Each structure stands twice: as structure tokens, then as C-alpha cells.
């Protein structure tokens, strides 16, 4: 408000400048366009001929006047830098159009600023005239802001409804695992409670803001505390949260605390994360995943499997994760390099892959991919496992397809997958063993 005396000049100068720009820019810009293409043509035709480029640019400079100075400077600079870096980089240079575009955007923004300033000025004059006429209401703005809070409340409620109805539907797919159904149920209950709280609190907050906006002759109600009300709204959230905590705690224990015999009877699958891929290892016929020692990692044995452990010999590499439906599966999640996260949204499964330790997640898929596709009415739908922990440049595309099939299909698929213990590796190990034996006999001798 105190900007008044300075602003008068500023606004006038600003408006003049702007008018000037609006008139001058389009004309000079089109001029500029043709020149830029000229410059480029020149550069490609006779790379290194700086003088010509320069002179053309200078010519534009004169023609378009100083309003486009900033836009024109760029090709100028380009030309001179070109001189030093030679013609090889000519095609790598940034198009002058870029600088012009940014100048445009800056101008637009300036225009908006000036419009805002002008509106502010008009409003200021309006209030002044009201004041002169003696009609000024000092609380007019206060009432306006209070009313805007009500408008915001409507926006908030409509927005919440819209987002639940549209984005909520987009985002929600029922879980396809047994434990996922418990999670879903708890999610829905929590969602209802929290949405209710959020809506009620906002209605109270914003309606109170409107209802109790300042009036000239009113004094606020001196009401410093009320212990029973405070006790009430401490205890009620506490009870609600206790219920949620207990519910959550038992569900969490059920998911993570699987009895030993169920752990052993489940299908075991090991998944190893590395930058930026997943490798899936099935235990083969013996049902036991062989030992791994990261120190054995080599170009032929990228997984670092310890083949002196014979249970590793029949281990199978899955091109993707294929699971038989309705059968518990226990995932062993490991990492080769840094932390990744094994995340399957549809299954409500996530556990980090941490180097130096094995994490486990056991669950039972209940829906085959085929059923899911029918349910979603989308024949291209696939379950996916992706990395959820920041792990480097290709973090955003570290995925593995997950397919849930019937028991028979699973067996058929598994039989087709290659073994980790390839012939090359077998020979290598046979060689090594022979070597060891000769070493042993040698030392005995």
C-alpha cells in the first residue's frame, strides 16, 4: 500500500514498455526466425565461416531494434563461441529459438505481474473513493477472505469427492493374495475413519472461520479451557487408535510371523536384486536353494552360486516370476550390490533387498493372471514386481513380470527354464575339483 508514490511511475513506464514489446516483438520475432534459419543454413553450408554469420546477426540487430536485444544476443554469442570450438560442434549448439522462447515467457510473466499490479491499483483507488464518500467498510476485506474460505471448503469437498471417485477408482485393485485381503479390509476401515475426520475437521475449521469473522461490535467469547471436552477429544482418538493398532498389530504378526512348518512346506524362491535387474532362482527338483557366496561371483557365475553345494546343481533360473495359484510361496530376497526393494503392488508384498542379509516374505497368491485379466477386462494386464528403493540411474525401470498360473502350467513352465549350473560351469568346477585333488595328494606326498 505504501508502494503508491513509486508505483505510479513504475506502472506507467511498465505499461509503455509492455506496449512497445507487444507491438515490436511479433514483427521482430518473425524477422528473427528467418535470420536464424539463415544462420543455421550458413553454418551447415560453410562451417567455420564466422564472419558471415556474425554480419547477418548484426544486421538483424539493427533491424529489430533494442527490444529484442536479449533474443539477439544469443546467436551472436553462439557465433563467437563457435569460432573457438570449431565447426564440429556446430550442430550441437542450442537453437536461438530457445532463448527467444524464454524471453517470451519472461515477458508473459511480466505482463501478468503488471496486470496484477494494475488490478491492485484499481482496487486501491476504489477503496480510496469509498473512503472519500464515507462508505468505506473497514471489514469488507475481512468478510471477503472469510467468504473465500467457504468457497474453498466447497472446492475442497468437491475435490475430495472427485479424487476418490475418479483417481480412487483408478488406483484401487483388490489384492490377489490371502494376506492382502486382510490388508485391504484394514485399509478401507482406516480410509473411512480418516476421511471422516478430515472432512469433519475441515468443515468445522472453515465454517467457524466464516461464522466468527470479525464484527465491529462483538467481542470474542473468553473461553480458555474446558477440561472435560479436552479429555473427551484425547480419549476418543486414543480409543480409535488403540483399535486400529491392535487390528494392525495382529495382521502384521500374522503376515510376518509364519510358523516354521508352514515356512518349510512352502515353495521357496530366491530373488536377487542388482543394478538394474532382478534374477530369480527356483530350487529345482530337490526343493532346496543352494548356497551362494558373493565372493564366487565371476563372469560365468554372475549369481555367485557355490556349486560345491550339491543342492545348487539343479537350481533353475526363471526368466520371470511364475507362481502356482493357491500355494504358499516363500521369497528369499537378497541383493548383490546396494539396497533395492522387492515390491509387488497387486500382491501387497514389499520387502527390501539388503546386501549382506536375506529377507523373507511368505504369501499365497489367490488369483491367476488370466482371472485377473478377465476381472479387469484388460487382456494385456500383467502383474509386476518393481524396485521401490532408490538405487541409481535406472531405478525407474527395474522390473520383472509376475505370472500366476495353475499348478500344471507352473510345472510345465519350470521344466523349460535353464539351470544355473551350465555346462561351462560344470567343466570349470570339475577342473577345479581335479586340481584340488591333485593338490591334496601332492601335499600328502
Amino acid at each position, binding site marked *: 500500500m505504501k508502494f503508491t508514490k513509486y508505483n505510479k511511475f513504475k506502472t506507467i513506464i511498465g505499461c509503455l514498455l509492455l506496449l512497445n514489446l507487444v507491438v515490436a516483438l511479433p514483427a521482430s520475432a518473425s524477422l528473427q526466425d528467418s535470420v536464424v534459419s539463415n544462420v543455421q543454413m550458413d553454418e551447415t553450408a560453410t562451417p567455420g565461416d564466422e564472419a558471415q554469420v556474425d554480419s547477418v546477426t548484426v544486421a538483424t540487430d539493427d533491424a529489430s531494434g533494442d527490444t529484442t536485444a536479449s533474443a539477439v544476443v544469443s546467436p551472436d554469442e553462439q557465433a563467437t563461441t563457435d569460432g573457438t570450438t570449431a565447426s564440429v560442434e556446430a550442430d550441437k549448439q542450442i537453437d536461438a529459438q530457445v532463448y527467444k522462447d524464454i524471453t517470451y515467457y519472461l515477458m508473459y510473466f511480466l505482463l501478468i505481474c503488471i496486470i496484477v499490479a494494475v488490478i491492485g491499483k484499481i482496487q486501491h483507488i476504489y477503496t480510496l473513493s469509498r473512503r472519500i464518500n464515507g462508505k468505506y467498510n473497514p471489514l469488507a476485506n475481512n468478510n471477503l477472505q472469510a467468504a473465500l474460505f467457504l468457497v474453498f471448503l466447497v472446492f475442497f469437498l468437491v475435490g475430495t469427492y472427485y479424487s476418490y471417485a475418479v483417481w480412487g477408482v483408478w488406483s484401487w485393485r483388490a489384492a490377489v493374495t490371502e494376506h492382502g485381503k486382510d490388508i485391504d479390509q484394514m485399509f478401507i476401515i482406516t480410509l473411512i475413519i*480418516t476421511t471422516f475426520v478430515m472432512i469433519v475437521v475441515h468443515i468445522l475449521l472453515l465454517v467457524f472461520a466464516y461464522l466468527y469473522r470479525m464484527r465491529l461490535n462483538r467481542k470474542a467469547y*473468553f*473461553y*480458555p479451557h474446558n477440561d472435560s471436552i479436552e479429555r473427551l477429544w484425547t480419549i476418543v*482418538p486414543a480409543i480409535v487408535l488403540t483399535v486400529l493398532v491392535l487390528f494392525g498389530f495382529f495382521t502384521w*504378526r500374522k503376515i510376518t510371523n509364519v510358523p516354521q512348518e508352514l515356512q518349510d512346506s512352502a515353495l521357496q524362491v530366491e530373488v536377487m536384486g542388482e543394478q538394474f535387474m532382478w534374477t530369480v532362482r527356483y530350487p529345482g527338483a530337490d526343493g532346496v536353494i543352494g548356497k551362494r557366496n558373493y565372493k564366487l561371483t565371476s563372469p560365468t557365475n554372475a549369481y555367485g552360486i557355490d556349486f560345491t553345494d550339491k543342492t545348487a546343481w539343479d537350481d533353475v533360473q526363471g526368466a520371470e516370476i511364475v507362481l502356482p495359484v493357491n500355494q504358499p510361496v516363500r521369497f528369499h530376497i537378497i541383493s548383490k550390490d546396494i539396497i533395492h526393494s522387492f515390491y509387488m503392488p497387486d500382491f501387497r508384498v514389499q520387502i527390501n533387498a539388503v546386501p549382506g542379509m536375506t529377507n523373507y516374505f511368505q504369501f499365497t497368491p489367490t488369483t491367476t493372471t488370466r482371472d485377473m485379466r478377465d476381472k479387469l477386462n484388460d487382456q494385456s494386464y500383467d502383474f509386476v514386481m518393481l524396485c521401490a528403493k532408490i*538405487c541409481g540411474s535406472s531405478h525407474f525401470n527395474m522390473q520383472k513380470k509376475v505370472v500366476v498360473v495353475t499348478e500344471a502350467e507352473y510345472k510345465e513352465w519350470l521344466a523349460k527354464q535353464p539351470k544355473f549350473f551350465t555346462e561351462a560351469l560344470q567343466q570349470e568346477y570339475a577342473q577345479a575339483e581335479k586340481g584340488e585333488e591333485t593338490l591334496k595328494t601332492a601335499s600328502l606326498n
Partner: protein
Amino acid sequence: MSTTVISHGAADHDSHDHHHHHETFLTKYVFSQDHKMIAKQFLITGIIMAVFAMVLSILFRIQIAWPDAEFPILEVFLGKWAEGGRIKPEFFLSLVTIHGTMMVFFVLTAGLSGTFSNLLIPYQIGARDMASPLMNMLSYWFFFVACIIMIASFFIESGPASAGWTIYPPLSAVPTAIAGSGLGMTLWLASMVLFIASQVLGGTNYVSTILNMRTKGMDLWKMPLTIWAFFLTAIVGLLSFPVLVSAVVLLIFDRSAGTSFYLSDLVVGGQILPNEGGSPILFQHLFWFLGHPEVYIVVMPALGLTSEVISTNARKPIFGYHAMVYSLVGITVLSFIVWGHHMFVTGMSPFLGGVFMITTLIIAVPSAVKAFNYIATLWRGNIRFTPAMMFAIGMVSFFVSGGVTGIFLGNAALDINLHDTYFVVAHFHLVMGSASIFGMLCGVYHWYPKMFGRMMDERLGYLHFWMTFIGAYLVFFPMHFMGIDGVPRRYYSFTDFPFMEKWVSVNILITWAAIISALAQVAFLWNFFASIWLGKRAPQNPWNSNTLEWTTPVEHFHGNWPGEIPEVHRWPYDYSKPGHDEDFIPQHIPYSQTMSSNHLHDFEGDEEAIRIQKAWNKENDREDVTFH
């Protein structure tokens, strides 16, 4: 509560006067030891860092919204990191990393509590300055150097740190895993060590000032809620930041000295690393032992500032002052035992996860009490919508909308599917990001007259508020749904997954909302900086507020009060007290001057005072009022 009350007499203050004349530009504006100047330094540095971090966020938002488009202008500014006008994936990660680090530490920790603790603690408790002005100055300069180092990391060959603001090793420890973990990470760690030093110096100062330097009559239960909030925040910071130092120092050893605190069994880029026996989980425990209290370090000062502003502008005492203090204390204590909820799916013992889940959900109770008390304060108030009040109401709104989603994430079972997704991004940007920044802006608008002796332009303030408020909701609210769908955070583009394609349209909406509300900040910046010179001169007590800072003259000078420091007689929330002719009674007004509005309860059992009041009441035909 017994306390040491240090009374600075007028005579004592005279000795200060001699310094003033020798002040040079350097001692007044640069190496100032005056709490008001240091507060301004913190604020302006914080604002600059906020703008910087905001620009970073706009850059990565552009990439997320238009993953296939080219923006040659980016190459002009970013060079090889945006070759061909497309931000590179590794630089994208740098952007999110530095955005997070700057916003959390430099803006919302130093910029918020650094500014307002320094400004308001001496003012509101009635002290001439901080307990140790020198430490205070050092605190700022450590912070400043930390900022410079962090920005400097943008000017090195391998780029800034890019392992996420949580810098989990091994990613942050192994430069071959990501380029940003080279020199960029070293600078990040150096910057953070300096920053923590700054916080510890500041925190020690805040705590000792509040405990030792309160003016006569200012017992703990007469302190404004702002001071309570700063006090508890400083305690949380003092207890948790040193743990981050230990985490950082061990990480520095792992990176530079070949130790294996966090590293074990690594094969990076086909090369077998020699490290054995460490655990990445250890780092996460140490980090989140600070990291979770840190979000309360960020949000508690905002809660304190809004309590004060809401009460002042509703012209009504804050509802349940004691409950507000106890809930802050509750949050302080609980904040130290909830860190594990960041680690439910890291492979931490599942039973431990269950325990952390219980403590986490308990912390929602004091937070809920605070929200309800704010609403009760508005009820039957006489609300004046200054820009500060607008931001305070906005803060309550964000605190609630963002807070309720914490109930999902604090629940270990639900967290399985929401961990590290956009749901988390939405949650913390609302509850600690937007809520805290609104608390900070509310403080700036409210205390600007105290800081600069000028008023800010109100109408620009409203424009700024509405654009930011609506913008922030448009940016963060839709992200919840992406998270529920299973879109992980820190994804460079959504185009590689069929199920994410539907979110591209929403991303464009978010990015536009972000750009527009970022531009709206220009209204604030102009308002803030121009008003320093052009604003209307501020009256001494522009908001008719009760607290002591408004009894100081508008012109700043070292020592705050020209004469004796006023004595405090009452709590800071005597707004609209029935029987008084004005709707506020400042803290330094003795009860003897407000006989017509006193409650018997005000005298805290002082028989003599009650007798006098009763006699007066009888004489003047007034009923004995007691509030209970």
C-alpha cells in the same frame, strides 16, 4: 516452578550503549551478535535456499510430467546434465536428493526455527539478547557455510549427491554405484556436519536462554506457546542431531578409510568389494533416530507460531493452553521412540516393527488434541483475517489432511504396500512440508513489522496465500492415489509400466499446479524484499498482541528495551477478557490496573490479592468471577 530470574536494570544496560557508536557495517550486518540481526540473516538465507530448492523441484516435476519432451532451455542452464533438453536420470536423482536435503534442513529447520527462535526467544521472555551471542553468531555462520558447500556440489564434475536425502548406504558409500556418491556425497556430508554443529550451537543457546534469562514474573506457565515450542524443539534437536553426526562420521569412514560399518557382501559393477560384516540397517537406525525427531523439529515451531497467531487474530485465548503444552511435551518424548516406522520393510525384526507401530500410532493422539484445540480457539472468536492468520488456518488444514494419512503409514501392515510410494510423498509434503512452510510464512507475515519496522503489503499477502494454498493441495493431494496404485517415489518417468500410464495426465496437472504456485512465490519475494524499504512504517503493536516483543520500540537497538525490561504479570492469552475495555491485555499489565476484568482464579491462590479483588468487586457491584 523456581527459576533464576535475571533482571537487567537500566544501569546495566547503559554499559551496552557505548558499543553502538562503534558498530561498523561488518559488525552490524555481517558478523552481528545481535539476536534480531541473526534472525534476519537466518530468514533471508532460508528464503534463498527455499527458492533454490523450489526451482529444483520444478525441474524434476517437468521431467515427470513430460518424460518424452525436450526442453532445450534446460541444456542452457544445466549443460551436460540435460543434454538435448532432457534431464538425465542420475541428475534427476540429484535434484530430488538436494531438494529434500535443502528443504528439510536448510529451510524448515534453520530457516524456520533458526529465524524465529532467535527473534522471539529474547523478545518474548524479556531478555536483552541470547545467553551466548557469540555462539549464536557462530551458529549462523556454520549454517551459511553449510549452504555454500551444498550449492557448490552443483559445480563439480560428478554432480551433487544423488542417493536420496536419506543417503542410505551402500548407494551413498560406493561411487561406482552412482556418480553422485563421489565428490558430491563428500560435500553433502561435510555440509551436514557443519549444519549439525550450527544446530547444536543454536539449540544449546535456545535452551539456556529460555531456562535462565526470563524476565521477572515470566514463570514457565506464563510463556507463550511459541517459546514452549522452540524450547522443546531445541531439546529434541540437541538429543538427536549428534546421533546423525555419528551416522555421518561412520559413513565418512566407510567411504574414505575402508571400514565396513555399513557395508558387507557387495559386488558392484562386477567387482567384488572387500567389505565384510557391516550392516546397512545400522545406518538406517542411526539416520532415523535423528530423521524422525527431525520432522517434529520442523513442525513444532510451526505449531508454536500458529498457536500464537491464531489466538491473537481470533481475539480469543488459545483453547487449552496446558493441553497444548502437554501435547508438545508428549510429541517431544514420543518422537524419540517411533523412528522404526521408517523401516518396517527393511528387514528389521518384525516384532520390533510391531512395537514401533504401537508407539507411532500413539503419537497421533497429542497431534489430534492440538488440531481440535485450534478449532475450539476459532469457535466464537472474533476473527481478523490478516495474511498471517490465513497462513495459520492453512497450516491447520495441512496438518490435519497430511496427519490422517500418517495413520496408514504408521500401521506396519498397511505400510507394506505404501512404503516408498507416492503415498509417502503426499503424506510428508502435506504434514511436514506444507504445514511447516505455512507456519513459517505465517510467522514471517506476523512478525515482519517486528523484524523490519515496516508492514508488508496485505493484498499481495492474500494473493500469495490463496495461490499457494490451492496450489499445494493440487500438487500433493493427487499423489496419494498414485501411491495406492503402487507407483514408487523417485521414478524418473512412468512410461515403462503400463499400469502407470494413466497417471501421466495427473502428473501434468500436478506440474502445472507446481509451476503456478512457484510463480506465486514471486508475489511473496517482491512483497518481502520491497517492503524492507518501501513498506508502510509499522506501529509498535500492529496486531494488538499481548506478548512482550510488542512492548519494544519499533527501531532496533542492541538490548531491545530502552529502559528496564517489563515485568510479567499474566499469561499471554488474555484476549477479549470480559470486563476490560479493550480486547487484549498485554502480559506486562499488572492486575491492579485491570480490576474490572480480573478473575479470582488469576491470583493463583494469593489470599491477599483475592481479598483486595473481592473488596473491589463489592465496592463496584461486580460479581466475583472465577473460570472453572
